[in-house]
Structure formats: C-alpha cells, structure tokens
C-alpha cells in the first residue's frame, strides 16, 4: 500500500505541514488561517467545536459564523463568513491595553494574559472585527434546579462541564469559580495554541465538515496555506485599516 491515499484529505496534508513547522525554528513560524467561503456550508460545527474545546461560558464566542443573504428574490444566495480572531500583524487591541495583558507571541498569535487583564474592555472597543468578548461570569446552569448528588442536578452538571477549565494557552487553570480569571477578562480565539503545542490542529480546522478552513505556516513555501495564498480569490477583511490580518478568505 502506498504512503498516500488516492485523494488526500487536506487535513492529512495540514497535519504534515504542522509537524514540519513544529520541527522548524519557532521564531520563523507564522501561523495563518485560510477560509474558503465557497466550501463553507454554514453548519457552525467550528463554532460549536471551539466552544467545547475552550469550554466557553454563555455569551463568550471565539468563532461565530456570519450568515449573509445576498441578492433579491428569486436571484438570491447565501454566503457564510466564519470569523475567528484575525491575529493581525498590526493589532489595534494590543496597543490600547494599558497593562500589557495582551501581546503578540513569537508565531504572530495575539494572546491574553488572563492573570494580568484588568477587564477594562478597551481592546473590545478597539478590535475592528468584534473578535473579542468579555467573560461576564455567566453559567449555563445558573437557572438549573439544584440537587446536590443527583446526576441531573446543577452541581453535577456544573462539575461535569462548567467548572472544569479548558487548557487554554497550555496552562492548568483553577476550576471556574465566581471570582477567578478568566471571569471579568477579555477573551478571544488563540488558534488553539494548546493544541498546536502537542501537534494537533485547531479544533475549528479538524471539525470543518466542508474542509473549508486551512491552517499552517506562512513561511513554509511547501505548506498548503502558502499554496492557497496564490489564489486570485484571496482577500482579507477590512484591509484598508492596515491591521494586516493573518486570516485570509477565499471569496
């Protein structure tokens, strides 16, 4: 049996690209994402996968999918625009943070230090893509009847999902409580850095049913994403603002 399938799934190629990037000098890797709108079916699997992966509370979303209706009846069509954080090379959110709680990491991902963020929400106002949300401390089980010790009770449900923290930024966080970060902080997509650290693609990429989301190293000339950047359909959102997003769209 040969080493490749007759038709290779893009995920296999991206996984190979990721392995290569992980072996490269970290300072020379620049993560980018390419989203093919022609392939996006608007299923929102990426949104849900992201919520589950990062254990996002109510009212916090990293990757909503905008549903656009174009044209007038009977010539109408729908177009979908998944909107992760653009990981801008020139991010307006970083400059406005008064306490250096949000910075660019070595691979170009904009990160938030939850233990430093004061929750002023200046970055929320500064982001032209609305990619940041504030964690207002909401709970899915807030209105669930409490019945300690019973499987379906609030305590059981919360312990099963809400209190167990995600491994965001590759850190071990304390159980979600009413007082601890990230409650009160700004939150955003971070390209699943915790997954990349262990050689896994971001959750939104692996769960995309239409294989519309591509991820890889912009500086690798052989990477799939680099190939896609050559498409005449490539564009970035609000290019005129000079933010230089690392998320590209194939329109």
């Amino acid at each position, binding site marked *: 049996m040969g080493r490749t399938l007759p038709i290779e799934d893009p995920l296999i190629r991206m996984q190979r690209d990721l392995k290569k990037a992980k072996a490269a000098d970290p300072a020379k890797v620049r993560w980018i994402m390419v989203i093919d709108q022609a392939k996006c079916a608007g299923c929102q699997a990426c949104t849900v996968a992201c919520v589950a992966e990062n254990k996002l509370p109510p009212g916090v979303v990293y990757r909503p999918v*905008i549903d656009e209706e174009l044209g007038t009846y009977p010539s109408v069509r729908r177009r979908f625009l998944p909107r992760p954080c653009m990981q801008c090379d020139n991010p307006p959110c970083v400059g406005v943070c008064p306490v250096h709680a949000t910075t660019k990491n070595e691979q170009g991902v904009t990160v938030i230090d939850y233990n430093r963020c004061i929750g002023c929400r200046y970055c929320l*106002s*500064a982001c032209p893509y*609305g990619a940041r949300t*504030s964690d207002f401390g*909401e709970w899915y089980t807030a209105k669930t009847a409490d019945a300690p010790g019973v499987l379906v009770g609030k305590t059981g449900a919360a312990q099963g999902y809400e209190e167990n923290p995600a491994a965001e930024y590759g850190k071990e966080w304390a159980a979600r409580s009413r007082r601890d970060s990230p409650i009160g*902080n700004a939150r955003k997509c971070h390209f699943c850095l915790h997954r990349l650290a262990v050689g896994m693609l971001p959750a939104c990429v692996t769960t995309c049913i239409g294989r519309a989301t591509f991820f890889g190293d912009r500086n690798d000339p052989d990477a799939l994403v680099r190939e896609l950047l050559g498409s005449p359909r490539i564009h970035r959102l609000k290019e005129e603002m000079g933010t230089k997003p690392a998320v590209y769209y194939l329109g």
Partner: protein
Amino acid sequence: MDAKRKMLMILALAGLAVGAFGVVEALMHGTNATALTSSVPWGLGVVVYLYFLGLSAGAFLVSILVYVFGLKRYEPLGKIAAWAVVVTEVCAGGAIALDLGRWGRMYRFVLSPSLDSPMLWMFVFFTLLLVIYLLKIKAITQGCDECVRKLSIVALPVGLLFYGTNGYFFSVLASRPIWNNPLVPFQFVLAALLTGGALLAVLALAFPPEGDDYDGLMRGLGKSILFLLVVFLLVEAVTITSGLKSGKADVVVAINAVVCGPRWWSFWIIHLVLGGLLPFLLLVKNGSGPRDVCQAGLLILATFPFARYDFVIPAQGLPMLPGLDTAFIHPRLSLSYSPDMGEWLVTVFFLALALFGFLIGPKLIPALFGSKEGDAHA
C-alpha cells in the same frame, strides 16, 4: 446647618445608603452585575466617569482665568474649586474602577504599564491632578499663597493633558468612526471646562467667596460659561453636520441614532433646549445676576449626563461586521443596552457621594469656603 442643607444632607445620606447595594454588588460580582455586553462594552459607568471628570475641570477653568488671562478677581473661587476637584475626581475614579471586570488588579497600572495606551496616560494624569489638588488644599489651609500659585501653574498643563487624553482615548479607536475624529479631544476639553464652570457657578452661589466684587465675579463667570457653551455647541454642530455629510455609513447611523433614534428627546429637548438654549438665554439677557448664572449652571449640570450618554452608547450600536450581531445569539453579545438596577444604584451612590462631599466640605475644611459659609444663597 439651615433647613435646606439639612434636607440635602438627608438626601445625600439616603442616596449613599441605597446606592451602597449597587456598590457592594459591583465589588462582589464585577461586570456580571451590569447589563453590559461584548458589543456594548462601555455603559453607564463610563458615562458617570466622563460626567464627573468634566465637573472636576472647574478648578482648571479658574487656573486659566487667573494665571493665564490674569483675572485675579476669580482667585477667591480657587479655594472652592480645589475642593470640587478632589470630590469629583474621587467620584469619577470610583465609578470607573467599579466598571472594571477585575478592579482588584488596578495595581497593574503601576506594575506593568503600557506607555502606548491612552488609558495608561489617563490614569497617570488623573492621579497627578488628584495629588496636585490635595497638596493645593493643604497649601490653602496653611496660608501659603506662593505654594498655591505654583501648584496652580503646574496643574494647568496637567489638567489640559488629562482632559485632552480622555478625548484622545476615544479618538484613537479607528474601529468606531464616530469617535475616530480629531475634534474629539478638543471637544472633551471644552465639555470639561463648560461643566466645570457650571459647577463653580452653583458652588459660588452656595458658598459665596470672600471679596467685595461678588456680583462682578459671578457675571464674569457667567460670561465665561456663555462663551464655552456657544463654542461647545458650535463644535458639536460641526461634528454632526460633517459626519452626516461624510457618507460613512457607521458615522451616519450613529448620528441618526442620536438625533432621530428612540432617544431623540434626550438630544433635542434635554441637551439642546434645557442644557443649551435655556442657559444661553439666562446668560445672554441684560442684567443677568448671580442667581441667573447659578440657574444656567444648574441646567447645564443636570442635562450634561444625557449628552455624555449620547456620546458613549449610540456609537456602539453597530456591529463591527455586518451580520455579526445575529451570528451567535446571547444577551451578552447583544447590540442593545439599557443599564440595569445595579448600574443605576452605583450611579446614585456616586451622585450622593458628590453631594455629601460638597455639604461636608465647609465643616471639614472651613478655610476653603470663605467667611460667608453660613449664608447660603442656594
């Protein structure tokens, strides 16, 4: 203490007691106790902060009149103004601190400051101004006129930078075209001077300063307020008309939300008629006396929170990307914002705290309030 002041003191204490519920809730639950959303991240807390910081400019106005324009007759107002700065800055600082998602981390401004951020400079100038005026009060009580003069001169650039930085804070936000306007920092300085002058007019009638030319002083203050009011309204008119003619969809929609949206009455009736036209008529009429100047000041003070609300909230009523507001539905992602009970209670607390501060001032530091302290006109 006369009957009117007793009533005001009871009002202040009642406000503090009722508002304390909101403050405790904010301290315990942070922004969970607000109606804020990720689409409208700044609400009533920011409005209250902007209002109080404007009031604190009264002393700044006196400094300009005395030390820049050489109008020495305003010097007696400086003592009251110094107290007004401390009271209003404490209220402004308290309101904005409680608006933070993690107020307990404010020490981060000192430990990991980002010099690129306008908010950091707001914090720096805010603190500097407060320290300067605390020192000034100490100098006044010790009778050191030279120290008062030097501190006033230092306060001038610091105040200018502080009020300008608050406007700059908004104007750097390219994502919000209606704020992203070079006139905004200038408007903030004007608004601060206008409301600060209005507060001084009220305080000057309540606590008449020493000196023979009291009527002349009040008439002069009235003329300054009139000038600032006219310039402020003109700049506002320029901002609105140029914004409407710019053709930028975000700007036009935000302006329309203010002038003909559901809260049109706030702009036309409260801000323009009650806060603009009526004070203008009171100040421009022949023979307007101290009482007219005070009434004009009261009208400006009472209506300016509406102008600040209209500046802060409608600008956030548009999604950053078309359709983003309906992409993922949750109340905390909504574009609509209406302050909840907790936010109103916090507002009541700080308004009551300011009133309490002005009422307790003459008892606490009598030297600041002149010899006629007991003869309140208001």
